[in-house]
Structure formats: C-alpha cells, structure tokens
C-alpha cells in the first residue's frame, strides 16, 4: 500500500491545462483519465487526511493490520483492507456515528459503490479491483467529507 494523496489532482490539473490550451494534442487515454478524474472531484468537500494507526499490543498476532485512518476536523473514516484472489474487500467505519440517512460512496477511477451506514456507522464493499480509492461521506444537511485518494495493491 502506498499513499499519494495529491497525485491524482496534479495529474488532472496538468492534463486539463493542456486540454484547455487546445494547441497540444493529448493522447485519448490521457484525456479520458483526466475527464474521469475531474468527474470525481467534489468542490465543496472537506478532505480527510491519513493519520497513523497505533500498533496493537497484547494479541497473539505478529501481523500488521491493514488499517487506514483518515481524519477531517470533526470526523474519522477508517478502512480495513483484505484482499483475496487479486480482489479487494473493504470494511470501514465513520466515527462519531453520523445521523441517520448518511451515505458513503466508495469510489475508484471507474466505478462508485454507494452504501447506507449501519446503525453503528459501519460499511463494507467486497470484490473491488485494486487501484486508487477514495471514500466520500455524504451527510444530510452538511458538506461531504472525502478521504484523500489512496492506492491499494492486491
């Protein structure tokens, strides 16, 4: 797992500038990727940034858990990653537990999965292809919180 919080935005900005100038033909693949990336931008959203997670103690496991934690001012979004057969299962939680009607979107460059939060603020999506991910938390009557893009390898 590597984290490149700003890479997507920089790429799409440069691609967009090149598109706008109109003088520089850009390969179709690049413009498609740029359009896709732009389509994923949320202008009003607050970005939740990655923070370190504590190392567990007192358990019979020598393994590092694949847990990602993102925080914005008032909200924490957690993602736990498991991968099998080259596909990714994501489980996570929004804390403090937001009001009823909150939706999370798990976004990749190509598709978006939407889930209602469970009463304890949890969500899960299974069988996603590895790659770039971001999670958006849409709260009724409040601006969305979006995690910075994170690359998940199988």
């Amino acid at each position, binding site marked *: 797992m590597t984290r490149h919080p700003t890479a997507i935005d920089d790429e799409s900005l440069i691609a967009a500038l090149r598109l706008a100038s109109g003088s520089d033909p850009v390969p179709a*693949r690049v413009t498609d990727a740029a359009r896709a990336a732009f389509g994923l931008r949320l202008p009003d959203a607050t970005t939740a940034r990655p923070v370190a997670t*504590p190392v*567990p*103690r*007192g*358990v*019979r*496991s*020598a*393994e590092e*858990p694949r847990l990602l934690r993102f925080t914005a001012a008032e909200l*924490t979004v*957690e993602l*736990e990653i*498991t*991968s*099998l*057969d*080259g*596909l990714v*299962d*994501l*489980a*996570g*939680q929004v*804390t403090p537990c937001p009001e009823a009607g909150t939706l999370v979107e798990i976004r990749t460059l*190509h*598709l978006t999965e939407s*889930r209602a939060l*469970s*009463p*304890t*603020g*949890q*969500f*899960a*999506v*299974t*069988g996603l*292809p*590895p*790659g770039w991910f971001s999670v958006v938390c849409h709260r009724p009557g409040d601006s969305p919180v979006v995690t910075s893009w994170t690359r998940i*390898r*199988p």
Partner: protein
Amino acid sequence: MTLDEALADALADAEHAVDLSGSDPARALALARTVLASLPASCRAGAPEGGAAARLAGCGHCEAEAVAHRALAVAARELGDLPFAEERLRRAVRIALSAGLPHRAAQARLSLVHVRTELGHPEQALAVAADAEPGLTPAEVGKLGVHRAVALARLGRYREAVDHCDRAVPVLGGDVRFLAGAMLNRGLARVFLGEFGAAEADLSRCAELARDAGLEHVLALAEGNLPFLAARRGDLPAAFSAYRRAEDILVGYPERLATVRCDLAEALIAAHLPGEARVLLEMAVPELAAAGAGTALAEALLLLARVELRTGDPRRARESAELAARELAAQGRAVLAPVAEEILLRARLALDPPSAELPATMLSCADALDAAGHRDTSAALRLTSAEVSLGLGDRPAAEHQLALLARSGRGVVALQATALLRSLAGDRRGAFAAVLAGLAEVGAGTRTFEDPVVRAHAARAGEPLAGFGLALAMRTGRGRAVLTWAERWRAVTGGAGRPLAPRPAALRAALGESVLVEFVRHEGDLVAVVVTRDRVTLRRLGPFPAVAEATVRLRYGLRRTHLLDGRAPEPGAEAAELERLLFGPLRDRLGDRPLVIVPTGTLHTLPWPLLPMNADRPVTVAASAAAWLAGRRAPAVRDGRVAAVPVAVAGPGLRYAEAEARMVGGCHRGTERVAARRAEVMAALERADVAHLAAHGMFSPRSPLLSSIDLDDGPLMAYDLLRLRTPPGLVVLSACDAGMAHAPADGAPLGLAGTFLSLGTRCVVASLVPVRDEETLTLMTAFHGALAAGDPPARALAVASGKTGVAGFVCFGCGDRPPTAGRE
C-alpha cells in the same frame, strides 16, 4: 608504444569488450567507454557524417570506434536499455560504412537484428538480417541465424525458427554463447510447437553450456524457460520453484527479469491464480516499457488484459487489450491479434448488454483463434457465443454451435456443450450425466497435484460446469439433488479426484440429533440445504453480496474490539443482521440442536458461534458434508501409534502462553510438554492424540499455506504440516487467525486448520480473528476443563465461550465426538 601499436591495442580491447558483453556486461560497458575515450578527437568528431579522417579507407581509429560502439550496444542490450543499444549500433554501421569497412558494418547489423526484434519490429529485423548476410563469415551467418530465430518466433513462424537454429549449430564452432543461444531459441520455438521432449533436451543443453562457460544469465534464461515448458505441459509445481531460482539469478537485469516474470504470470494464469499473476505483470510492464522492449511489452499487456478480465476489472482489461492490439498490429504480429480480440469481446460482454451481432463476431474471432492454433481458447469462446445467442433468444444458432462443440469432443467444454444441449431438449437425466462426466474429467486432471493450493485452483477450470450442474439441480426444486451436486463439486476441489457425494441416508443417520446446513451459491444468490435425521429441505436466502458484506462488517468490528481499538463498534448488531440473513428462513428447522455448517465463499471467515442463536449451541464447521461424515467415522487413534498422549506447546513472545501450556497439563493426565521448535513439534504431532499450541499466529490470504504458527526457531507453516503422516485427532490452535481460510473454490478451505483436517485430523479449534493473549488463557482454561469432564470439543467450546464471554474461536471438522472416544 607506436601509434599503430596503440591502435591495435584499442581494437583488441574493443573486440574483447564485445566478447565480454555476454558474461559481464557492466565490465564490457566500462571497457568500451575506455576505448572510445582513448581514440583521437578528430576521428570521433568526424565520424557521424564522415569527416576527412573517416573517409580514409581502413582507418584504424574508425574500426576500433565502430567495434567499441557495438560493444556498448550489446552490453546495454544485456542490461536492458534497448533504445540506447539501437542508437549505438546505427552509429557503428555509419562509421564502418564511411570508413569502407563493410565487414564491420555487417557485424553491427547482425547485432541490430536482435535489438530491432526486441524493440517490437521483427519484420524489419528480418530485413536487416538480409542486408547483413552477404558481408558475414560463415560462422557469423550462423550467429545471424540464431538472432533470426527470435524474430521468426515472435512472428509465430516457429518451424522456420527451428530450421535456422538447426543450420546455425554446425557452423558456430566453439562459440559457446551463441551455441547456448541457438539451443535456447530452438527450445523455445519447440515449446510453442508442442514438441516438449525435444524442447526439454535443447533447454537442458543450453543450461549445461551456460553453466560450464559461466554465462550466469543465459543459464538463468534457460532455467527460466524450463518452467515455462513445465507450465505449458501442465507441471505447475515444477514451474513455480524453478521460476523462483531464475528470479534470484536475474537481479540486475531488469528487462530480462521482467520477461521471466511475464512467463511466470502466464503459468499462474494457467493455474487459475490471476491475482498473483496480476501482481507480477504490474511489476513487469513498467520495466519493459522503460527498457523499450516493445515485443515483450505487447505480450505482457495481453497477459495483463487477461488477468484484469479474470479479476473482475473489465474496464482496464479493455484498455490493456486495446493497447496490446495496437502494438501487435504495428509489429506485424498477426498471430496474436485474435488473442487480443477475444479479450476485448469478453470485456465488452462484461460491460455492455450483448448486441445482436456479438455471437457472429465471437465466432469469427474463434475461427481466427483456431487458425492461429489457440484451440482451447476458441472452444471456450464458441461456448460463450452459444450462451449469448440463447440469451438473445436465438435458439437455433445456439443449438448449432453447441452441437458442433459437442461433436468436437474437446474435453470439458464439449461435455458442457452436451449438457446444455440435452437440457435444452428437455433431457435432464442426459444433461446430468454429461455434467458428471465433465466433473470426473476435471477431478482426474487435478488429482495428480500434491499441493492443495495448486489443486484447488486448477479445479476452478470446472467451475462453470459445476455451476451448470447446480442450476439443473435447483430446477428440480429438491434439496437432495442440490446437496448431491454441491457435494460432488466439493469432492473435486477437495482432492477426492472423483465427483462423489455421500448418500443422504447415511448422512442423516450419522447426524442423529444434529442439523447440517450446507450453504451454496447459485447465480448470485445464497441457497441453504438443511439436513436433519428425518428430511432434507431447500431454502433460498437472497443475494449473496449482502451476506458477504455483513460478514466483512462483523469481522471488522470483531477485529477492532480484539485489538482494543478505542472506537470499536459492538459486533452484536451486525451478528443479529447476519443471523437474520442466513438463518431467518431456517429457524423452524433448527431448534436448539447441535449445528454442522458447510460454508461457501466469504462465509469461511465467519465466526459462527457469535450469532445470537448459537450462544449455547455446539457448532461445527466442515468443508463438506462428506468431510464431516469422514471425521465422524474416523477412529480416534490410528493403527501403529504406541501411546497416544496430549501435547502442549508454548510459543515465544507471549506473557500467558506458558501458563496456558501448564494449564493443559493440569487438565489432561500424561500431557507432554514439547519445546517450541519445529522438529520437536512436528515429531510430537505425529504421536499426539490431542495437541495444544499457544503461540502467535499468522494467516496469509494470498498464499494460505504460508500461514504459520510462531515457534522459537521460526514459523511452522501449513506447508510443513503436509509432511505429517498421522496428525492428532484434536488440534487446538490457540493463536490469532489460525482458523482463517481462503477457499478459492467451495470444498477446499486453505489455511492451517484446513491443512490439518485434509490430513485426517478430526477436529481443529482455532480463531478466525485476532485474539487477546490473556483472554485466550481464560477461554482455554474453561474449554479444557469441559473437555476433561467429557464434553465433545464443539460443546466444550460453547460452554467455555458462554462462561467467559471470549469470542472468535470456532470448532472445525467434526466436533461432536470426545477426543478420547476411541480409547475407552
């Protein structure tokens, strides 16, 4: 030293650098640079466009310079910089021609043939070879033949490639490097021609020559191709181990290493391990692109597209296949074009509703695949086209295609076509018979694999057929039929070799008061078969993804709780939700009777005792009804065991493991303490009837047999356990995640617990989540207390969990007989 002598030295050094480039490219590079630096500036400055000095025929400076550039090029090619190699060879040709040195120009062109091929221009490489040939000595024409063979093989002209190598061998004389190259290229071409015996002889001879001459990476290439041959023959375990060796030797040759990785990826795809193949290809593609290795890159993109398709990513598969198709067209490699087309068609089918002309497009692609020799791919595509025709309502077209496939008699696909055809004609019995014959063929093909991972993945080739058999069974509406076909598939994946199902009467008699629930997936839905002493019931439960997601959420909450992560959610709500999804429609059949569960997919990771209805209920989880039945019937103590004893092991790095091992000794008379070293533990497992291991545990989802228990001298892996001949009847793995399994196919849960059970252990108690050191001691104290009092393991675990409130452990296999039953 005179000027002439100095020039003669420079030329000799340059030629030495060319020779050296094969065995030590880094030194060759340095030597060639030294030669170039030593030459007079006037000569080098004038060389590119042919200055006054260069026009002097036979100019000694120019000769040394041309040879030095060629040495740089050949060394750079070895180190993976193809564009640089091409640029230097073109310069060498120019210098040699300007200086009136046609032989030196022809030599540079000889090297250029190989570089142009690897850059993705095999046709042009053949033209360069034709230009070079008249200027070469007979021995050099032999070398040219070796390079030509690579271009020809890339174009799919394998027979001509073999002929060129045949002609090269007698004229190469003592040039070991090229002789080894000729064997390598001929061997590879023969692999593609399916002449495996001759191919193996060539590749072995290549390895022998390279080893004797110290040509380390030619040796690695030969070894890297032996497993490619093994993979093409279907010998996957040999392929895996040999690839690992090749990877070690090729450190420092990124482009060569990338090529070997692509070969390994191809073998992994053949073994139905697309996820692992994808990891390798995502490493290889950028390396090949950076090296400018256009030819290998196009092939790598093709493989990448295939694994992206297989790992549920049709969008990227389409992008990669389009890119590959463009590259292949530019390279004039028509033989691979239909392979790219096939992936594109399947990606399109996955993304968009099928158009009316899709079946016809698929069939013309299948024709092209046949013409290019890809017969298995074409047969599978024809079957898909028939299925698409059916979906579009064009039954005559579908039946025509299916009849052709059925008559072709090509393995499992033909039997699947036969089954579908008979089912369309209303002949259900005939359809079942064809499915059974197909499953038997899949089972026979996988029985030879000793590695359970390879076996389980290889069996996946039969998944569509098994799915069809299950669909037919579902249409009967009868629980017995569904159970039989679900069990037949589990027997194949579990290594029984034959699609056998237990007799329902025998199963019901053995169950006694217990209830068996076998979960099965059918077209995205979850289905349950409930077996009790008096009947077999079928219930549909709804979409599987909802169940899978609820399981993942429950595990998340449980993991966070056990890791004492402050914000952990209570798992109770998720557990109640899962109970509703899984058992809501079954509750009337269960009562409070002991439960035997046969899971499917993600449900292999569900800690079943956590569901509210299981609070005080003995629960056992088995890979199949047949596996549970076998455990039920197994004698507690096998023949030849002198004194069956309990053994206890305390692993390193834990505060409470030692106390736990002592506790086990206190509960069971005669318990033997065993040192936490691999040899001692393995020996103890051979003679124990009950084994308790308190230690750190690790589950490896990508390679489940690398899951391990920490001991003083390193990890005891599931792979190590495969050597056990008489495993204990009851194994308690008092560690994190030791019960975790990955089931690539239903019936074959892979991991520590699954390995013990597949070897004959009757029952394993292990955790599916991280567990806390101190809490585990508390739970295990209650568990062994109940066990010593005569409870069977599943009941003992229910009692202990109820008493202590510690959750996460599950009883696997057959947990309803006390471990000492056979002795008393």
